[in-house]
């Protein structure tokens, strides 16, 4: 093991980690916000309402993230209409395209996770709320949504970790995220083991931190579902 070049490159890894976390945060925030209304439409009884949402999530969950990233970054440039539009300066930037592709991807998965939790709401909770005289809007806002979002937490924690790993693809479209930093170090010093193991160790640490945070949140918000001794 030759560690001197790795220690020298630590600032590069640090800025790479910063970009990775930034991409993750933006994707989760934008994708999560869009997923909430989509999940409500996804559980709507009418086929004309939940059908299109299903098409969106099926297409995004059935294709690789790399395809989606390439479609946004390389694919959209094919159309004259896109190149003439106001969004073109944004769509030329690899950073923006990565954010957009990751947000769309996590939005599809989050929609299904939240919709699943909504469907699994115990009917007694809804009946009790109605019996207390809550209006339909109040039932959604005060009972169904808080209850479902809590129960979605374990599955959502997995999604966050998968998205963290998905952001590694940003390095394929030239961004210097954590993986990009490791590729840069490898091509500068030709130290593949040291370069990629360092990045892997950092990813592992972030993953474990996310899992720890998830368990903490579950302890707090899912306390009512735990088996009582």
């Amino acid at each position, binding site marked *: 093991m030759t560690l001197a070049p790795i220690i020298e490159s630590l600032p590069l890894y640090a800025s790479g980690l910063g970009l990775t976390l930034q991409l993750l945060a933006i994707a989760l925030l934008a994708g999560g916000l869009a997923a909430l209304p989509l999940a409500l439409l996804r559980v709507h009884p009418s086929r004309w309402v939940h059908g299109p949402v299903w098409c969106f999530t099926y297409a995004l969950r059935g294709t690789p993230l790399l395809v989606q990233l390439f479609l946004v970054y390389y694919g959209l440039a094919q159309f004259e209409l896109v190149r003439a539009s106001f969004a073109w300066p944004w769509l030329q930037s690899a950073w923006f395209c990565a954010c957009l592709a990751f947000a769309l991807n996590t939005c599809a998965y989050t929609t299904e996770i939240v919709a699943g939790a909504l469907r699994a709401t115990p009917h007694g909770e809804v009946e009790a709320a109605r019996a207390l005289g809550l209006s339909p809007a109040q039932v959604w806002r005060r009972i169904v949504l808080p209850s479902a979002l809590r129960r979605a937490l374990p599955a959502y924690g997995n999604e966050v970790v998968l998205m963290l790993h998905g952001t590694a693809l940003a390095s394929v479209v030239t961004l210097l995220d954590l993986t990009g930093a490791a*590729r840069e170090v490898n091509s500068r010093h*030709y130290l593949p083991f040291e370069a990629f193991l360092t990045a892997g160790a950092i990813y592992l640490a972030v993953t474990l931190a996310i899992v720890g945070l998830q368990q903490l949140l579950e302890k707090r918000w899912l306390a009512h579902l735990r088996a009582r001794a």
Partner: protein
Amino acid sequence: MLHGYGPALLEGTLLTLAVALGSLMIAAVLGLAGALARLSRSRLLRALSLAYTTAIRGVPDLVLMLLVFYGGQLAVNEVAARLGHTDYIDVDPFVAGVLTIGFVFGAYLAETFRGALLAVPAGQHEAGLACGMSGAQVLRRILLPQMLRHALPALGNNWLVLVKSTAIVSVIGLNDMMLRAGQAAGATREPFVFYAAAGAIYLAITALSELGLRALARRLAVGTRTATP
């Protein structure tokens, strides 16, 4: 519409499927070994299996693939040089890709198989032993066939995720469907068309797999009792 690149894309699809099936085989072997190690009485084997599943699931597959590809290149050539070999040896991206994806999904399958093995009632194991079977016979004739039934839903999900993660093999230069789509996109200046075509092929593989998995589930469920609602 595809400017004559259709056959090339289909050839790439075959390569993508070959990578997926090859990785699945490696993953199944590693997953079974990991699950049995995790459930064994030896503390060392349990710790090894836990370290394997935790470390692999905490690191992006792209990072591991770059590690295996570039690191493998270095290691193979160093070993060859020590053995007196002077020519430079190239690591085949197909081998590196299959090994990495197999190794990664072995960790996921280990968790799947562990849960499924635990779901087989203990009485089945005991009955096998009481009939005079050896431990290996009980495993092969009693536990594995029943375990597969419980494992199938999660196994199916793992397969769908595995197929999609084969797309990243194009990053290390394997001439798979993604790389061919990229070549065609460059030659025709119609990137959207070709990446959309690649996405559609992945979607078709996903949809066909789902049909196949449903048929397999029916077959494996032979002999189980279900209450018809």
